[in-house]
């Protein structure tokens, strides 16, 4: 289509991203494109040779788009009656995809040229539930918000009609708690750093917006979200070790375990996607029941506990029998170090009745030591119990 040069634009004002093809036969004929602030545009191929393609654009509201897709109004009449009276024509290089020329034309230019057949029918079946955000949409959203965004979508048969509490309390909340733990802030500051949007039902989807650094780089939150994705993706010991190595503490693991169990119990699929407006990265992950069970096997890994009873000659330094689990601290003369632990319940009465002279009298203590070896997710642990003691005769 030849266009009068008086309609030429010095710069094409739209920065468009191709989102969907409604008609792609040999060439992309009818497309949905979006600008950087999320406006929808329909573009129709009017010319294409081996050098360039020419497309005509109208901006459409969601309502108009639905009408066109349902063929309630024809594509031809949508282009002849654009909602905002603007029709753009743009020419792109086939080789580079870059704009070569652009025009802003009155409606009559398009209607006179009859570029869109009057009987053009769109063949489009709308998906039942568009709940998993498309990657590009998520990146666009992230760029508009200028925040790291983490999209959460939980799918399960038991979430079709409504959102069950487990989805909120045992999957979504633990994810938020993991983020808070890894970023090292608590609920008092949550409103400063977190926000939720794009709430979707059937099943349950929500976008977590994250801006912790409040700068242009998002370094800390980028690290955290990437660690979270590593954790959600972990399927062997090395994967978990990598996450543990990259994080300061392992307190978030209890939230992860809650989430894993809920996914298994409800045969749910957790789809997550992360978009970074600075690096333009988009990463996705799906954690289903099978993968959750593999992760749980590693979490449940235990080794035999090693038990040992030793005699220590020394003196009491501390006794606290008022606590829920009465505790002691003793000093070993031989090894010159202190040993802390809990009283075995069977000797509690003896301790109360003995009126022990702390720090002065010498005793021979029998201390039972339980050694819990290190597992993939837990560091080693030593628990000591005082099972008996005798005052040494002078």
């Amino acid at each position, binding site marked *: 289509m030849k266009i009068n040069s008086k309609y030429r634009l010095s710069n094409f004002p739209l920065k468009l*991203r*191709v989102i*969907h*093809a409604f*008609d*792609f*036969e*040999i*060439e*992309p004929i009818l*497309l949905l494109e979006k600008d950087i602030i999320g406006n929808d545009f329909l573009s129709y*191929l*009017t*010319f*294409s*040779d*081996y050098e360039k393609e020419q497309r005509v654009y109208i901006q459409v509201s969601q309502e108009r788009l639905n009408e066109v897709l349902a063929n309630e109004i024809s594509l031809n009449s949508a282009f002849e009656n654009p909602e905002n009276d603007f029709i753009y024509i743009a020419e*792109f*290089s*086939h*080789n*580079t*995809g870059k704009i070569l020329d652009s025009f802003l034309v009155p409606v009559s230019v398009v209607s006179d040229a009859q570029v869109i057949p009057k009987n053009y*029918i769109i*063949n489009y*079946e709308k998906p039942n539930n568009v709940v*998993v955000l*498309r*990657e*590009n949409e998520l990146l666009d959203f992230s760029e508009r918000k200028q925040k790291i965004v983490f999209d959460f979508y939980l799918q399960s048969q038991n979430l079709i009609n409504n959102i069950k509490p487990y989805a909120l309390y045992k999957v979504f909340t633990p994810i938020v708690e993991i983020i808070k733990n890894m970023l090292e802030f608590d609920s008092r500051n949550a409103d400063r750093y977190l926000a939720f949007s794009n709430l979707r039902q059937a099943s349950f989807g929500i976008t977590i917006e994250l801006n912790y650094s409040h700068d242009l780089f998002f370094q800390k939150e980028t690290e955290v979200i990437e660690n979270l994705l590593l954790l959600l993706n972990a399927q062997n010991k090395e994967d978990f070790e990598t996450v543990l190595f990259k994080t300061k503490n392992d307190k978030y693991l209890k939230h992860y375990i809650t989430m894993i169990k809920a996914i298994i119990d409800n045969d749910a699929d957790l789809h997550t996607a992360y978009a970074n407006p600075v690096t333009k990265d988009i990463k*996705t992950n799906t954690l289903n029941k099978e993968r959750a069970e593999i992760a749980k096997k590693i979490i449940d890994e235990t080794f035999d506990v090693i038990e040992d009873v030793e005699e220590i000659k020394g003196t009491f330094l501390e006794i606290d029998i008022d606590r829920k689990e009465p505790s002691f601290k003793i000093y070993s003369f031989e090894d010159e170090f202190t040993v802390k632990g809990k009283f075995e319940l069977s000797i509690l009465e003896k301790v109360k009745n003995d009126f022990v002279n702390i720090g002065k009298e010498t005793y021979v203590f029998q201390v039972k030591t339980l050694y819990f070896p290190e597992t993939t997710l837990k560091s080693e642990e030593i628990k000591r119990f005082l099972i008996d003691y005798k005052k040494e005769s002078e």
Partner: protein
Amino acid sequence: MWKEKLPIDCPPSSAKELDTEAYRILKSEEPNESDFLPYVYLHPENERYKTLCEAYAISSFDSEKNAIKAWKGALKRGKNIGTHIAKVEIALSDGRNDFNQNSGHYSTWLYESKNYDTFECSNIKIISEN
């Protein structure tokens, strides 16, 4: 699984394996690999269509009539996409297909095992505009 690294949610869930005959426009009487390249490989530097699922599919039509109609459409827009038309066999093991009933157009996303030069062409003939 797929011959190409496809965008997310591609091919659509509606795409199915098919065992059917289809018609494809060829550049010459002698079909070769370049006759069966997806759109995205015709202009590999063009970023505009890299995330578009359909750009990774191969086009064909359910009838000679519909194939020629599409060829005429492309010609009207400014491009002669080929001179010949051939019947091709689409097998269940080739990939998944989406079918547009209005235009008789197949989009075929190939499995890894299928090569572009292994489409069997028959009844190759020059396109007649009439």
